[in-house]
Structure formats: C-alpha cells, structure tokens
C-alpha cells in the first residue's frame, strides 16, 4: 500500500508539473524540435530562435498559421503540416512551460545603447526590455538571437512576404537599416529595466551625441 501511495503521488506530481493538460506522448515529438531549436528549446544557432518560455498562444498561433498556409515560412510550414492541431497545441504548451533562457552572444555596445534610445518603437507591444509583452500573442525578445530578429525583420520589411501581423509590418517598415541593427542588439542583450521616463532617455541620448562629437 505504501508503495502504491508513493507511485500515485509521483504520477500526480507529474500531472501537476505538466499543467495537467499536456498529452503524455508529446515529449518524444518535442525532442525532434531540439534538432533545430536547441536542447529544450534554447537555440545554439544565431539564425534559429529559442522557443522555450514563449507564450503558449503565440506559439500555437504561428504554428496554426503555418499549417493553414497563412504565414510565410521556409521549412516550418512543410514540417507542421504533418501534425494534428492537438499535437500543435500540446507542443506549444510543452515549450511555453520550459524556462526562457537569454542566449549569450557577441553584440556591439554602441548599438545596444542606440537601441535603448529608440525602444519606444517596439515597447508598446514587446515591453521596454522585450521581457514583458503586452499580451499572450506577442513573443518576448530579451536575449533572443540578434541574427534571428534581423532575419525576421528582413521578412517583415519585404512586402511580398506573407505575414499576417499588419501592425508589426508597419512598424518594421518605418525603421531605417541602422535602427533595425540597433534594436536587435538592444533586445538581444537582455536589457534590464531602467525605470527611466521618456524625457530622461531623451536627455541621455543628447548627452551621448555630444560625447560622440567630442
């Protein structure tokens, strides 16, 4: 009886840990994702996004859009058509439950600084540091690969590329080439919140420019 109790507590603990809704057999499927998206969804490749810890709704939506052919992709559309909507939902839940881990990467300090001055272009939806998206449909960006974000912005800035998020496209098109680089490096650096107001930032930017002229 004691043994049974131990077993059942273990099993219940497992169900609790997985949110009680992730299908039992999703882990082996999720492990096939590691090939491209890194072990447990933390990418080791500049051009590939980390997917662990992203919002479940965001993950589900992009996969469903790929499956329906509503969203441009290179390979994901061809892969995801092989799986049921239920499997897609379970994959999203699986990855959303894993911890978000900012990836260390080589970044330009000057670009990070420049990015911090213009973060208001993105902050309304992604938050000031990229860590606090305003809703569950928006991915966090703090510590995501700069290269991946550069490529995504390249796609958003190409009007022939089918991407359903019009607001993101409009914002992306307003940026200059330099600004794209600055913002990618800023978010990739996993910045901490400074608590500074817009006015203070403006002042800081002015100072930085004066410093540069000297």
């Amino acid at each position, binding site marked *: 009886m004691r043994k*049974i*109790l*131990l*077993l*059942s*507590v*273990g*099993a*219940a*603990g*497992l169900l*609790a840990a997985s949110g009680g809704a992730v299908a*039992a*057999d999703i*882990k*082996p*499927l999720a*492990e*096939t994702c*590691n*090939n*491209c*998206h*890194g*072990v447990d969804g933390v*990418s*080791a*490749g*500049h*051009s*590939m996004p980390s997917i662990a810890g992203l919002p479940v709704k965001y993950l589900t939506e992009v996969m469903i859009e790929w499956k329906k052919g509503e969203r441009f992709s*290179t*390979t994901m559309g*061809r*892969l*995801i*058509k*092989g*799986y049921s909507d239920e499997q897609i939902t379970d994959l999203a839940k699986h990855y959303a439950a894993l911890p978000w881990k900012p990836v260390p990467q080589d970044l330009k300090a000057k670009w990070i600084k420049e990015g911090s001055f213009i973060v208001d272009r993105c902050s309304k939806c992604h938050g000031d540091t990229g860590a606090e998206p305003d809703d569950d449909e928006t991915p966090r960006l703090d510590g995501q690969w700069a*290269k*991946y974000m550069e*490529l995504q912005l*390249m*796609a958003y800035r*190409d009007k*022939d*590329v089918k991407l359903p998020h019009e607001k993101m496209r409009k914002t992306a098109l307003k940026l200059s080439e330099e600004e794209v680089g600055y913002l990618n490096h800023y978010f990739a650096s996993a910045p901490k919140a400074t608590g500074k107001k817009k006015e203070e930032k403006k002042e800081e930017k002015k100072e930085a420019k004066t410093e540069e002229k000297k």
Partner: protein
Amino acid sequence: MTTINRRNFVKLLAAAPLASVLTVPTTARGAAAGKRVVVIGGGFGGATAAKYIKRMDPKITVTLIEPNKTYVSCPLSNEVISGHRTIETLQTGYDALGKRGVEILNDLVTGIDPAKKSVTTKGGKTLNYDALVVAPGVELNYGAIEGYSEAVAAEIPHAYKAGEQTLILKKQLEAMPDGGLFVIAVPKGPFRCPPGPYERAAQVAHYCKNNGKAKSKVLILDANDTFAKKALFEQGWAALYPGMIEWVPASKDGKVVKIDPKTKTAFTELGDHKAAVLNLIPPQSAGAIAKAAGLTNANGWCEIVPSSMESAAQKGIWVVGDSCVGGELPTYPFPKSAHMAMTQAKVAAGAIVASLNGVAAPVPYYANTCYSLVAPDYGISVVQVYRVDDNKFVYVKEAGGVSPADALPIQRKLEAEYADGWFRNVMADAFG
C-alpha cells in the same frame, strides 16, 4: 494536493501504458539501474543515442565506443572545399558527452556476439551490454570501381567522410588550372547525403567563378537517373553558374565503372573523361561491423522495426543512422542524413530506456530537414515527415517536400542562414 484514492489510482494505472518511460516519474523507475548500453559509433546518430539515453535515465551506464577523438561533420563540409568555412568549424570532441556521464572509449569494435550480449574491441576489451546501439555510418566499397582503393583515395579523393579527405579535395581544386575539368562521380544509390554531390558541384562552381577559374567546368557522372532536389539544383546552377555544371545520368552513360588514377581518367561503359580533379564517390553499404554481426539484408543495409529502431534481424540491438534502411519503401525511403539519424536515435533511446525499465515504448516520431547551399546566400531544402501505423512506416504526404521553385529571393537567403543555424543546433544537440 489532490487526494488519490484507490479508484483514482487504478485510473492512473490504466492511463500509464499511454504514457511511457519518458513520463513515468523517477520514483517509479530504477529498474534499469546497473544496466549497460553500449553505443558503437560517435557520429550524429550514435552520439545522440548515447546522450538521450543518459538524459532519459541517468541510472543506465552508457558507453560510447568511437575510434576517433575528434568528429568532423559531413554536413556543410562542401563549404570547406569552396573556402567558405574552415574545417575547424565542423569539428567537435566528446568531452561534453563525457561530462554528461557517458563513458567514452576511444577504440574500434571488432566483434559483436548477440548471444552473449558482448562486444570486443581492437584494444582487446570485452564489454557486456543489456542493449546495443549500432551506428557505424556507411562503408565505402572502393573495390566496386576498378582501379580504386583506400590507398588510391589519397590521390583521387572521395571526400565523403569529412576530415583529411575534404582537405585533399580542397587543395586539388585550388591547384586546378583555369579551364580544368572537375569530375564528380556519383555511385548508384542509396548513399549518404543524397543531395551532397550536387551541392558540391555548386560549391566548386562558386569557387571557380570567384577565384579566376571561370573557364573551368564541373562534370557530374552519375550512376542514377535522377537526384535529390533536382529541379531546384538545376534552377540554381543555371541562375548562378550558367554553362559551368553538366550532369550526365546513368541512361546517358554516366555510370563510372573504372578509373586510371595516374591520368585521372574516369571510364564509363562507353566513354572516358580525363579530369584535372577527379572526385570519386564509391558505392556504399552499412558499416562493416553491422555486416559482420549479421544485421544487414541482401542489399547490404540494416532493416529495422519501425516502432523502435530495433534491428529486424537481431533482438537487443538497435541500428541508427546511415546504416539502416527505413521509411515508406520503395518510394519514400529515409534519407541518409544527420537530421534523420538524430530523430532515429531519439526513437531508439526512448525504446531502449523503456525496454530496460520494463515499460511501454514511447510513440516514435521521425522527421528530416536537409539544407543544401547552392551559394553562400542561396539555400534550398527538403523536409520529410514519417509516422508509424501498425508498426509500418507511412510517409506523411500532407507535409514535407522541397522549397518552392518560385520562391521569393528572400527564401533562398533565409534558407542559407538557417542551414548555419541548423548546423549549430544539431552539433549542440548531438555532442553538447
């Protein structure tokens, strides 16, 4: 916490077979403590199997036996030939796996005794196993081409096992005069990396175009009548290297049967082609140890059980990677790729850990993604998804396929970038 009474517990038990070793809580395990898995071969398949078995159940002793201390990735090695990548970027050791608790034995397995469940090595060791993973890659059958041998390969490289061979071919390309003929001889399939020879042709043409050898030509002499991503390659060749690459199929006397190493001449049944550089890729079969252990079929490849990757010829032995033959045959075989080897290895790892713990094996998932670089900023790909129904492979037709022929230019650029990202992740996933 939810109270679990006897009735609930029975429900949980009933659900248990649906679960698997991967989801069985650690407290319920332990059955595999003291059991040993031996993995033969430290390529993408073998390394992944070793790592995932240890990850799924740290109580199992895992020994990886591999003769080389450094592994060189075949994927992306064509970029070394064209000078866009150094060979160092393709290398990895086994230290990280060692730190994960995998025992690394630098040795060569010379014998498998399935009855005694043991392997013997060149170094004189005998290791007993409870489960064995065989991942030796392909054997190059030099003898199938008259005039070719392993010794001759120092002059007439195959460059189909990355490392020194890759560098020999690179040097020969660099030394080739402008206007020189670069011949790639492709064996009858199946062979590892199905698009490899055609990507190589593009990389060689790219090098020639940008290094003062634009009058040179690449001639592909093929023992087959079609090839992987054919339409996409032909489109890319024509767009980037017009007139520089010619493909001769088997039906037009493309099959090389003999070579003269001294004059670098490749002989087909009816003709001969004198090359400035001769790159001869010999016919292939499963690694020698797989054949010696009786794991191969009449064609020289290892058949496996779809639900688990266990050898169809021998219980207690799992075969992963280029040595095995699987997929929905004959139309949709498993391609011999690193990505495929890794998904196979993960299926095998799950099945082995389940078997050693006496529980049901997890549902198997097989998929492939394979990028080819026509140029540094021009990538194309193929995707395959397989499922297992009633222990039979089914190629999922709703999914998969090659990059579209009418793709936007940005897609070619992105796929080249993703090839690099894919590579870094498979290296980290298998060896990290």
